[in-house]
């Protein structure tokens, strides 16, 4: 029970029906393609038939020869060609067209996920097909010890819990954790009734002194020869970018051996959603309200991870829970680097309550923030400089992301243009800084005939005075 498996996911909006997946599959498997893209209900809309590797595989249940079995490790439903008698009953069991007759050999053929490295996904030029490895991540981490209390009082849909539990499962018991004021202690890390909410030593520093206290702890452990302890913070963006910044900057400058994880939800969310230095331009917060005159925050966010890179930390990276594989790789590197020097991991964490996102859409928001370059995924070391871990090429317009977030609902076209300009500027700067680094994985191209949906003007009222003027004050 509790099995989770990697899966080939299909994002229909990115498919332009080029058929490269089928050509590749057919070539690799030397027969009929196991994946079938068919025309959909409208022009330039496509649908998919492929084995879903069901948890409850009816193809296998109706097989009279025991030729189809679900692999408990990979989740793939394997086909045993020796046992198969070619009766085709499996095709009657499958409601997805996932197992079908390959007429060239007159036997059934089905997707086997190419032993965990599906060729169709690699061939897909638009990113419509994706091999999602959340299953194996879940399985790996599900087996590790959970170091937080079972019940946490986070808001519905909050992904800070995901970050906390998974990060701590990876880091393990040999750690000392600081959780300065913010959502994370508010959710229960500091515990109740005199007991902590974690199975590791945890403390609750001031907003202003987190990094300084950790520096002292680290030095003490060094002094007594315990070099195996991860000394770390799970802090919010306010405690990192604003009131705690001097301590963070000082510790980074001194090269203190700390793992500092900043969970950036773009504001002081647990105290009532006030703006912070990382709140993006245009955002509604309780201190940047939307009314007749004010239209949300009038200043741009500071880019804290770039500031940390300028400290020449041992390791700096940005991550998103929409890209867990990437996050985990960086977490590994960040833990390693924290034994050598200051290690900084900045995790973008959309806040369903403070940003007004439906709780079911938080991970969607994570992914779209990256797909639009609103957030970029990169890492830095003093040796390699900045390197994108996901290509910023072929990004979607920022409207695709902004329109799903309630705190941007009021934005005028002018404000949207401003955000797009700033996003483009930032990516351009990062590209210059990353120019000498190893190239990122290739980006997917835009679909050839994208579903015609011109960016809807959010609150696009021409009579509204341009808000940009206020920016010039900065």
């Amino acid at each position, binding site marked *: 029970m509790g099995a989770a498996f990697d899966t080939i996911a299909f994002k229909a909006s990115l498919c332009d029906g080029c058929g490269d997946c089928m050509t590749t599959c057919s070539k690799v498997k030397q027969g009929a393609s196991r994946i079938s893209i068919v025309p959909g*209900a409208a022009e330039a809309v496509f649908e998919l038939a492929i084995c879903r590797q069901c948890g409850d595989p009816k193809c296998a*249940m*109706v097989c009279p020869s025991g030729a189809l079995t679900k692999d408990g490790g990979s989740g793939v439903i394997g086909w045993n060609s020796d046992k198969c*008698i070619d009766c085709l*009953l499996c*095709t009657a069991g499958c*409601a997805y*067209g996932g197992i079908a007759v390959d007429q060239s050999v007159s036997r059934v053929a089905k997707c086997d996920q190419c032993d965990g490295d599906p060729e169709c996904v690699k061939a897909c030029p638009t990113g419509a097909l994706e091999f999602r490895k959340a299953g194996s991540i879940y399985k790996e981490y599900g087996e590790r010890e959970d170091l937080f209390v079972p019940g946490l009082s986070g808001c519905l849909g909050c992904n800070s819990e995901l970050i906390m539990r998974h990060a701590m499962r990876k880091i393990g018991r040999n750690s000392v954790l600081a959780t300065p004021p913010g959502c994370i202690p508010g959710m229960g890390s500091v515990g109740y009734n005199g007991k902590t909410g974690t199975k590791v030593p945890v403390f609750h520093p001031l907003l202003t002194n987190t990094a300084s206290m950790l520096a002292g702890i680290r030095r003490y452990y060094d002094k007594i020869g315990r070099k195996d302890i991860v000394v770390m913070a799970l802090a919010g963006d306010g405690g990192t970018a604003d009131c705690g910044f001097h301590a963070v900057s000082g510790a980074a400058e001194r090269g203190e051996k700390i793992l500092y994880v900043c969970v950036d939800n773009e504001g002081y969310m647990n105290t009532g959603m006030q703006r912070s230095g990382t709140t993006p331009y245009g955002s509604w917060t309780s201190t940047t309200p939307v009314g007749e005159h004010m239209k949300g925050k009038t200043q741009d966010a500071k880019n804290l991870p770039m500031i940390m890179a300028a400290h020449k930390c041992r390791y700096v990276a940005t991550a998103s829970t929409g890209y867990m594989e990437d996050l985990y790789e960086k977490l590994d590197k960040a833990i390693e680097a924290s034994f050598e020097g200051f290690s900084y991991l900045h995790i973008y964490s959309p806040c369903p309550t403070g940003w007004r996102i439906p709780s079911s859409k938080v991970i969607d928001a994570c992914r779209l923030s990256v797909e639009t370059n609103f957030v970029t995924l990169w890492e830095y070391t003093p040796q390699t400089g900045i390197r994108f871990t996901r290509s910023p090429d072929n990004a979607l317009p920022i409207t695709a992301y902004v329109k799903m977030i309630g705190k941007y609902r009021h934005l005028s076209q002018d404000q949207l243009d401003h955000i797009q300009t700033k996003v483009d500027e930032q990516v351009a700067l990062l590209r210059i800084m990353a120019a000498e680094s190893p190239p990122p994985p290739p980006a997917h191209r835009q679909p050839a005939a994208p579903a015609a949906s011109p960016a809807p003007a959010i609150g696009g009222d021409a009579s509204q005075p341009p808000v940009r003027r206020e920016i010039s004050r900065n």
Partner: protein
Amino acid sequence: MPEAKYLLVGSSHAALEALRSIRHFDPDGSMAMITRDQQLPYSPTILPYVVSGRSKPEAVLLRDEAFFEANACTFAPNAVATGLDAKTRSVTLASGESWRYERLLIATGAAPAIPPVKGIETVRFHVLRSLDDAQGLRTAMGGARHAVVLGAGLVGLHAAENMAEAGLSVTVVEMQNHVLPGYFDAKASERIESAFIGHGVKLLLGCKVVAVEPRDGGHSCAVHLEDGKVLQADLLLVATGVKPVTDWLAGSGVDLDRGVLVDETMRTTAPDVWAAGDVAQATDFHTGKRALIGIIPTAVDQGRIAGQGMAGDTYQKAYPGGIPVNTYRFFGRVALSIGQAAASDGVEVSEREDGGYRRLVMSDNRLIGYASIDEPFDVGIMGELIRRKVDLSPVMDAFIARPVETGRRLMSEQWR
């Protein structure tokens, strides 16, 4: 007296699926599977391939002992049920032993129906329902030259093909005017028939056997036909259909018709007794009446529902009704049918005969049946279109022109 909370009588698809769905909900309740077979579970559908030699008898078993151990289920082979007492909740076996149960599944399947032909009890004949039958037929094939097969259903045709490929001269006698009646219309059946004729099999369709008698000291027999012709056979296979194994239920309080009558949750009329698979007479999707549809997909569906009911799983869903399915291979070719594929009255039919043969049967812009020869389609997808009564009017032209592609599209839209 051995006892089990869940007693499963039978060991093929329905019983195995019931086991799975019981264990899904109740990992601990004591369970036993008793079967008249000597072997671990296997499917009757595999038997023609054992006859042909393609499948080795030891390689067709669907589960091993470790499976029963892992599922905490006692597996008792060679256990022929001879009586059920629903009041005392006990099943009597031919060995004299009795099993007590709290909840019982009747999944005894079906056995060959032997036609009342004069002299049938005096001759040696084969049937094909068990692994022993299959091995017996395979051995007999080796020493025979002239085979006569009674019945041109799936079992008869599979066996006829096997024997023809093994070099025997084979004659198939069928009362109906076409092979595989019910599954295919006349045009489709004719394609199958011509393949058999092309491979040297004699098909005597619309032909009735009136008597058989032993010849040559019992080593062969004479088959007398209604028109006076006489066929000589040193191998006689009776494949005139099957009937549910219900004789052991007489007087038990379980209502019987042609099979065990069950409601939409696979309950019989006796308390805490369920039935599933070939033995059960459950709702027919098309007519809404109770009918026998002895195929694996319905056995699996029924077994799951019965198991859920036995375990008290509240997520049990009512049986939507069985839809006939036939996936048939003959001489390497493909014949498929689902639903009312042979219907012609009061329905719209679209046929295509260039190259392969395809027949779509619609009613009220909804698919109710689909058959094809040499032109495979996604049987499961078409089954869902039938079961869900998907209105095809917005896509009718595309569906008729390109049913496979359009079917995949419709299902993708349904689940995406």
